[in-house]
């Protein structure tokens, strides 16, 4: 490589263009530092303060999971979780921004701060609790099996061995079925809607989902029936990001009040045809 002596001298001495460039560079660096520190400073606000300041709470809901969260014929979100979310907005006196999330993305969307809280039929399993925090429960649910009404083979989850079951990734069915029924052929799909379509188009022999959703589907469509009792029952709670104690405290308080005042029972009876399962631990 030949060295251009003339250019090198010019560089070392510096000229007007060099000085202008230097000034511009310093300005850009200062702007960047300022933006970054401002962003970092903004991070110091916790979620509760941020929600109140922005007058908006972003709630992650399921959009294809009637009657918890779904789109009605007018394209608006409806459901048990949606009612609870709107009630939360009233309590906070802010607007509610309902963000549809896929089952597998519920936990991830909290960690990556895409939503402030998840109200999406989320079970507070011990495994998930290592990554996010859960509030006190507001419902409970167990896995239930839905089959075609003329199906005679499947009577309980033991009969799922050797059958094909399409489930959604990231839900409780995904967590428990592989260990409960290792001989079942489990196919994981991206969304709940896909798993329902797979069942209805006979790609899978049974649909395994939380009981309240299954009972709702069966009530709507007499081509299907429920078999067996709900298994692997669990609670349902809100999910929040880790290290947000103030926000968690607020939501726990909100849910305690909601349960005590009886409003939660009202929502429950509006959406689910049976009596709420007791949330008492003892």
């Amino acid at each position, binding site marked *: 490589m030949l060295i251009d002596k003339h250019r090198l001298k010019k560089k070392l001495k510096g000229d007007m263009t060099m000085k202008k460039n230097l000034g511009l560079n310093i300005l850009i660096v200062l702007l960047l530092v300022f933006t970054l520190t401002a962003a970092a400073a903004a*991070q110091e606000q916790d979620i509760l303060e941020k929600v109140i300041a922005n007058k908006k709470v972003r709630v992650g809901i399921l959009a294809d999971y009637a009657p918890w969260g779904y789109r009605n014929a007018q394209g608006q979100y409806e459901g048990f979780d949606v009612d609870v979310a709107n009630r939360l907005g009233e309590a906070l006196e802010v607007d509610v921004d309902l963000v549809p999330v896929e089952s*597998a993305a519920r*936990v*991830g969307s909290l*960690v*990556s701060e895409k939503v402030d809280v998840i109200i999406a039929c989320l079970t507070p399993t011990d495994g*998930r609790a290592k*990554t996010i925090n859960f509030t006190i429960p507001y419902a409970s649910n167990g896995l239930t099996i839905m089959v075609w009404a003329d199906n005679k083979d499947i009577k309980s989850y033991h009969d799922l061995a050797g059958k094909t079951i*399409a489930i959604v*990734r*990231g839900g409780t069915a*995904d967590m428990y079925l592989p260990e409960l029924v290792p001989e079942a052929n489990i*196919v*994981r*799909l*991206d969304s709940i809607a*896909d798993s329902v*379509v*797979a069942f209805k*188009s*006979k*790609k899978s022999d049974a649909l395994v989902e939380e009981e309240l959703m299954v009972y709702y589907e069966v009530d709507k469509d007499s081509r299907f029936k429920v078999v067996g009792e709900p298994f692997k029952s669990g609670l349902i709670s809100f999910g929040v990001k880790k*290290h947000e104690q103030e926000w968690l405290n607020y939501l726990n308080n909100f849910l305690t009040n909601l349960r005590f005042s009886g409003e939660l029972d009202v929502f429950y009876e509006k959406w689910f045809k049976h009596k709420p399962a007791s949330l008492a631990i003892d």
Partner: protein
Amino acid sequence: MGYKMMFSEITPYFIDFLKGLEISLIISIVGMLFGSFIGLLAAFGKTSSVYIINLPVNIYVEIFRNSPLLIQMYLLYFGLAQFNIQIPALTVAIIALILNNGAYTAVIFQTGINAVRKEQHEAAYALGMTYFQTIRYIVLPQAFRIVIPPLTNQFISIFLFSSVASTIAVSELTYTTMNLEAITLRSFEIFIIAGTLYLIVTTAISFLSRVYENSFKY
């Protein structure tokens, strides 16, 4: 308030990544081979002056080039199931890749064939060669050299688009990746590994292609 990266949690699952990669490679290679074969035939069909051959081939190419692979797979998998035609997921993925690839390679081959100058055809005619002899000994060897770079691109494209098969639950690399992400909840680590595996394969394909191209440069 940092997010600690824990690759150690992923290492037990590395075999699953490799198994997924194997399936991705298999469906991409099968799709590419059979698709290119169909593409070559379709290229001749497109340039044919016989209307009965020309029109259906053109319709096929336009449909499969201008619609998303995802839609094609969903139609074959869920769509046909509504009419009680059940095709297993892996078969659907391979068929969709072959048809899609066929349409794209048809255009690639067509360009390659047209790029061989008319003078070559005239010289062959003057030498008394039949149409098929011209194609086999004069046109195809030259066209082949021209189409290697776009075909490499197409192969890389097919390999990367094989990830769409994950939506119909074919156990290829992306499907495995999504499942592991749901199990371990370590999004960043999981996707970095998957992305790197795809990158390694595509880089290898590009490199091999360049070596092959150089081997017959004059």
